[in-house]
């Protein structure tokens, strides 16, 4: 098997035994990029030369000592809304076409300290607004399982890079499902940690109270490794939790005997693709066989989550994106007549349609006369949804749901109907509203061979429990080894 096809922990074994070098590993991934990137277009920007150079430096260091951390010497990608000093950070928008940040995202600093090797910046929906990565101003990323289908969004590029083995792990961001849904569409592991666990400093803001950074990996053990590296308090982020650091790899393989796994009818309503339903039912049976206890749980307010989400996220986004005015950085319209026209032309030309749509929705929801009915109402409903989850988790340890109602849809299929696109987030959005953690792992394939993902959710700070449940399923099944057709090419 090609080195690029392996997981982080497999590579670490080989590195430890000195059977491979970091340079060989990195070269393998770069070769893979040369081979498949033309078809998948996961990356906006590649740093191949720099990566090889960095790999050589790490190899030198490893001659004198052991690896200082599990991610040292491991090539990875970053979603292009994570600021990287000296490397363009565009958020896949024309608005930031030339933005070179004079600072790093906190998580990038952490990965630099760990000794990871940055391969490049991955494609996304513009400013993280979208569910298909079709809203990128630069390119369309294609699903490696079927190049005519979307990879999901907004972290499509990050999902595809891991799915097509052009990175050992990537980081994405999740505001309403933007890690979990593409992970599900691309057959990889994607996790959104508890809100506040990972610093948001340097993550270009979409919806401040919902955004979280998280990993894409090839299996659950790798996910735990990456989580260990990026979780932690950051004094530059006032919403960053300051709690004792955990080792997410510890007790990962403990098993699920006695674990209470909740299943809610609300997630199995109509609109759920048949094969998705079947896979989840199979998953439930597998968990039963592994000794878990399946518990019926119910929600009162889940139906309202999507509306609350769109009102809150758009409102916060409308404010977060107001700073893009062509004055201090980024795109500026070429022709304008006076200051107000500068603002209008710059923002109308610099932003894509979906971004403008959300800004309009959010501005309206906050505006005079509408604040109480829309934004404030949504914030109150948010409380109800949080309490709903609190109540559910009294009766179970983790909640099992499908990640998305369907598998990946065709490129161009939903672009004309924004509301239909929004509805694909229906199972992922409540998680951000409540601030709880969630992971998506592969749990099957549909009739045309497209990956199906399932979600494991838990109460605040229950990452270890979720990972444990995820690993148990993964270990019992073989989905992690079923690679995308593009991924199978050697």
């Amino acid at each position, binding site marked *: 098997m090609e080195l690029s096809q392996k997981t982080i922990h497999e590579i670490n074994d080989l590195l430890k035994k000195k059977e491979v070098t970091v340079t060989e590993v990195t070269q393998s991934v770069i070769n893979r990029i040369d081979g498949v990137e033309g078809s998948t277009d996961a990356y906006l920007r590649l740093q191949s030369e720099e990566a090889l150079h960095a790999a050589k430096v790490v190899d030198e260091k490893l001659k004198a000592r052991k690896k200082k951390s599990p991610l040292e010497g491991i090539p990875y990608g970053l979603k292009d809304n994570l600021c990287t000093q000296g490397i363009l950070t565009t958020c896949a928008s024309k608005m930031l076409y030339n933005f070179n940040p*004079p600072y790093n995202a906190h998580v990038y600093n952490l990965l630099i300290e760990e000794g990871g090797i940055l391969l490049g910046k991955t494609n996304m929906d513009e400013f993280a607004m979208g569910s298909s990565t079709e809203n990128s101003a630069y390119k369309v990323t294609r699903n490696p399982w079927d190049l005519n289908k979307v990879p999901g969004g907004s972290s499509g590029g990050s999902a595809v890079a891991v799915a097509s083995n052009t990175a050992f792990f990537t980081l994405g961001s999740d505001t309403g499902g933007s890690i979990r849904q593409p992970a599900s569409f691309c057959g990889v592991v994607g996790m959104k940690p508890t809100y506040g666990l990972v610093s948001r400093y340097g993550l270009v803001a979409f919806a401040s109270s919902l955004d979280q950074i998280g990993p894409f990996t090839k299996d659950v053990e790798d996910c735990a490794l990456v989580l260990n590296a990026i979780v932690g308090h950051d004094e530059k982020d006032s919403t960053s939790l300051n709690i004792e650091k955990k080792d997410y790899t510890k007790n990962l393989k403990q098993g699920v005997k006695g674990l209470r796994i909740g299943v809610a009818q609300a997630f199995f309503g109509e609109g759920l693709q048949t094969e998705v339903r079947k896979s989840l039912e199979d998953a439930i049976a597998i968990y039963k066989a592994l000794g878990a206890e399946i518990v019926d749980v119910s929600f009162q307010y889940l139906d*309202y989550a999507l*509306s609350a989400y769109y009102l809150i996220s758009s409102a916060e986004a409308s404010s977060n994106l107001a700073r893009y005015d062509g*004055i201090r950085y980024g795109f500026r319209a070429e022709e304008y007549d006076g200051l107000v026209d500068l603002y209008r032309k710059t923002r109308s030309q610099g932003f894509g349609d979906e971004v403008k749509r959300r800004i309009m929705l959010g501005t309206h929801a906050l505006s005079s006369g509408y604040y109480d009915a829309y934004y*404030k*109402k949504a914030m109150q*409903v948010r409380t109800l949804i949080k309490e709903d989850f609190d109540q559910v988790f009294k009766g179970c340890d983790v909640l099992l749901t499908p990640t998305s109602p369907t598998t990946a849809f065709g490129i161009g299929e939903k672009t004309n109907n*924004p509301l239909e696109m929004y509805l694909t987030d229906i199972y992922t959005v409540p998680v951000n509203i409540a601030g709880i953690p969630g992971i998506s792992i592969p749990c099957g394939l549909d009739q045309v061979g497209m990956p199906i993902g399932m979600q494991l959710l838990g109460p605040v700070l229950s990452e270890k429990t979720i990972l444990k449940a995820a690993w148990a399923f993964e270990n019992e099944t073989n989905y992690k080894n079923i690679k995308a057709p593009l991924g199978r090419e050697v």
Partner: protein
Amino acid sequence: MSLTREDVTYVANLARLEFTDAEVTALADQLGAVLDYAQTLSELDTSEVKATEHVLQLKNVFREDVVKPCLTNEQALANAPDSEAGCFKVPRVME
């Protein structure tokens, strides 16, 4: 409950965005559809419910009053589309 064209124009002005007539019509429909869907929220009695402003229970997160290095003028202006005399430049502002 659709949005009227006037609503769309008012909001566009607040957001410093401009649209063609056709776009205004499309937006009125699309946003109207989303808001219609969101109308379900009004079914809920939230009169006794406190709004969630932060999902975390954090409070009093402060920083010490200690000076740290700034960007140089060059660094601050490095990304500026237009600048002059060490400042960002915009069209004449009437005050």
